[in-house]
């Protein structure tokens, strides 16, 4: 049986240091967001040793003469009420939902139109000030941390309209202030929905910036498959439309695929000021099912076989036995403490019935236990409670602990081995690491719990996380399936792409952002 060491021997060996923001927290529950200002962050700060070389931070922008001039110019563009350097405002705008200690920007501006965003970028370019776009601040990788200070451009507060809904064309055009739940609320009366569901109620444009995904990706795709066009403001203030001005056809062969370029660029190439996204028909019938297995291998085999049978699963989530125990304790449930699959089927009534039958049989063939299923909305909600509250159940396992959450994604055929090897590695290191996975995509998260006051435990978590990412890369996968690179995985990105791959990214960045102002310190290093 292959273990991680053998897998690793195929990976390149590169020195890994702590960068300013390694730990990652996945919020899969998506109901409450953790309180950002807990004591834990203060403790966590002590753990981070920064040996990443970054630019010398800017002098406090607000207090210098040029700072005052900058502020005045910004106020002229957006109005004095829409510029702030208040302590709590900047603090909030530098800190996302992950455990990275974010760095605050110097000034936050709240533009009300694409033209204002363009003018802001021109001013920042003139003064050589970093620009950090901000949507809902629900990211997990420290993507909004202003590592070199600068101007944070909050595009969600005032730019919050749904610009167009095209019911017959199944698309909508939204501004950054529209979150996915807001969009869903608006279109459901038309029998439509927006299926990309990363858990948090994130800004749709923000989801484009990070290339977000979620539990429905196995059937409906990620943001990349659901975005038709983006309006982007570049560092120099130019406004472009990545698929053409006002374009929203289902397909196009016109020019370079700029939409793909900006999707997932994490604010390093431009600011997204509107997104044209795909909508889907609300399924006629939905059924949910939960089934337990003796081992993770059984569960993952079931997943692989189901996909091989081409069953159009809408959701396929794996919760391992550690996670199930946590869920039982937290939500007062009584599932057997074994790995479970949480499934959802979409389609017409007859399609859903036949899909359910097929999967029930496959599960049984793989030693599956009782196959619970439900059709009624309330029953489905109850059935999925365990999965929805998974993250909070994990934190409750060891009160006061934090979680370093991994996010690897591999081809589905490689999943069984990687999951098994990962669990062995977690056990070897003596860690508690419940596992939740969008196994239909070959993507899984382990919540590696650590005591914030114990640097040795944190170091072990880092070791496991990095090993896992390297194994994933070696198996033909990726170091991040959906959370993005932010600051924490920059080194892993280099390993995944090789020097030439990253150099091409650097060249593109250099062409579009020669002054290196757009969200510095993210995705890859300057050189």
């Amino acid at each position, binding site marked *: 049986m292959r273990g991680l060491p053998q897998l690793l021997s195929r990976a390149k060996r590169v020195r890994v240091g702590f960068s300013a923001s390694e730990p990652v927290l996945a919020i899969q529950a998506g109901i409450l967001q953790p309180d950002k200002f807990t004591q834990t962050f203060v403790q966590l700060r002590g753990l981070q040793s920064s040996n990443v070389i970054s630019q010398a931070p800017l002098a406090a922008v607000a207090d210098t003469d040029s700072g005052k001039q900058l502020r005045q110019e910004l106020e002229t563009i957006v109005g004095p009420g829409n510029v702030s350097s208040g302590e709590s405002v900047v603090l909030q705008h530098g800190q996302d939902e992950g455990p990275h200690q974010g760095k605050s920007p110097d000034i936050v501006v709240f533009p009300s139109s694409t033209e204002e965003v363009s003018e802001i970028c021109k001013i920042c370019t003139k003064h050589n000030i970093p620009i950090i776009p901000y949507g809902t601040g629900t990211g997990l990788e420290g993507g909004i941390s202003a590592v070199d200070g600068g101007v944070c451009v909050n595009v969600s507060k005032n730019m919050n309209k749904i610009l167009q809904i095209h019911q017959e064309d199944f698309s909508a055009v939204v501004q950054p202030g529209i979150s996915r739940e807001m969009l869903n*609320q608006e279109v*459901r*009366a*038309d*029998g*439509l*929905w927006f299926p990309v569901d990363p858990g948090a109620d994130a800004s749709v444009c923000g989801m484009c910036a990070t290339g977000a995904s979620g539990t429905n990706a196995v059937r409906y795709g990620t943001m990349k498959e659901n975005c038709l066009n983006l309006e982007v403001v570049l560092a120099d203030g130019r406004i472009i439309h990545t698929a053409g001005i006002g374009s929203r056809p289902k397909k196009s062969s016109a020019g370079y695929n700029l939409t793909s370029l900006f999707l997932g660029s994490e604010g390093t190439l431009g600011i997204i000021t509107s997104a044209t996204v795909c909508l889907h*028909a*609300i*399924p*006629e019938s939905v059924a949910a099912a939960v089934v337990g297995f003796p081992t993770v291998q059984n569960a993952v085999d079931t997943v692989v076989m189901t996909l091989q049978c081409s069953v159009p699963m809408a959701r396929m989530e794996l919760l391992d036995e550690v996670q199930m125990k946590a869920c039982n304790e937290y939500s007062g449930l009584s599932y057997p403490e074994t790995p479970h699959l949480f499934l959802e089927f979409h389609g017409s009534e007859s399609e859903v019935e036949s899909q359910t039958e097929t999967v029930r049989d496959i599960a049984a063939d793989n030693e599956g236990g009782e196959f619970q299923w439900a059709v009624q*909305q*309330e029953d489905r*909600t109850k059935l999925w409670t365990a999965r929805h509250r998974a993250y909070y159940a994990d934190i409750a396992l060891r009160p006061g602990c934090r979680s370093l959450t991994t996010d690897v994604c591999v081809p589905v055929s490689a999943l069984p081995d990687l999951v098994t090897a990962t669990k062995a590695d977690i056990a070897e290191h003596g860690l508690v690491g419940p596992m939740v996975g969008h196994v239909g995509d070959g993507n899984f998260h382990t919540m590696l719990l650590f005591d914030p006051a114990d640097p040795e435990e944190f170091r072990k978590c880092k070791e496991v996380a990095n090993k896992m990412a390297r194994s994933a890369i070696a198996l033909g996968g990726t170091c991040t399936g959906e959370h993005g690179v932010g600051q924490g995985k920059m080194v892993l990105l280099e390993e995944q792409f090789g020097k030439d791959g990253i150099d091409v990214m650097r060249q593109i960045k250099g062409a579009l952002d020669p002054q290196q102002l757009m969200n510095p310190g993210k995705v890859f290093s300057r050189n």
Partner: protein
Amino acid sequence: MALKVLVGCKRVIDYAVKIRIKPDKLGVVTEGVKHSMNPFDEIAVEEAMRMKERKLVNEIIVVSCGPAQAMETIRTALAMGADRGIHVEIPVDKMDTFQPLHVSKVLAKLAEKEKVDIVMLGKLAIDDDSNQTAQMTASLLDWPQGVFASKIDKTDAGLEIIREVDGGLETIRTTLPAVLSADLRLNEPRYATLPNIMKAKKKKVEKMTPADLGVDMAPRIQIVSVEDPPVREAGQTVADVDDLVAKLKEKGFSSA
């Protein structure tokens, strides 16, 4: 013996909209504002649908009183699965004086005309919060009422209803016909799907006026004024505990 249900649906300002008071302070701005079906009415339609799926009900008639746009609400209910609709047309300028008593009279007349077994309503509408229509309709018809229902079951003799009341849950039994009103936890309504929205366009909707039903529209309630709640004042920072205590005393919060 399958039952016939009349479900009332009201078109209200969407719950997520920020309400603005009209300059004349006699109402709220409705022009150009997003409207949708009253959430409790969605629950009522859903319950009727579930009873139909359990073969307890064989016909669901949805009725809405209002101007032309009330048709949208009826179509939504039809898309959820109701069989046919009745649109009781009220001109826009009469909407301000169209009140729960009028609705009750309309529903009572329709219940008799259509010979229904159950009148199913939402417990209240989120715009006026009146919580009167179901009760008045039952009274006009002299039918039993099961309001704030969180569970409805059929028995041999009629219905068994669990009601949400202040002290907890109350179980009552009524004969049929009866008037029911839906509370929040009765069910989670389904979403209208595209095929059902298409089918709904072909379902029959009858139009009529209150006069056709012999209902007089004279208002019984006069709105005197509508005002915003007081504007939230800025907070005050206090220097230290002594300052805080002094301020509390000043505002009359301390007896010491």
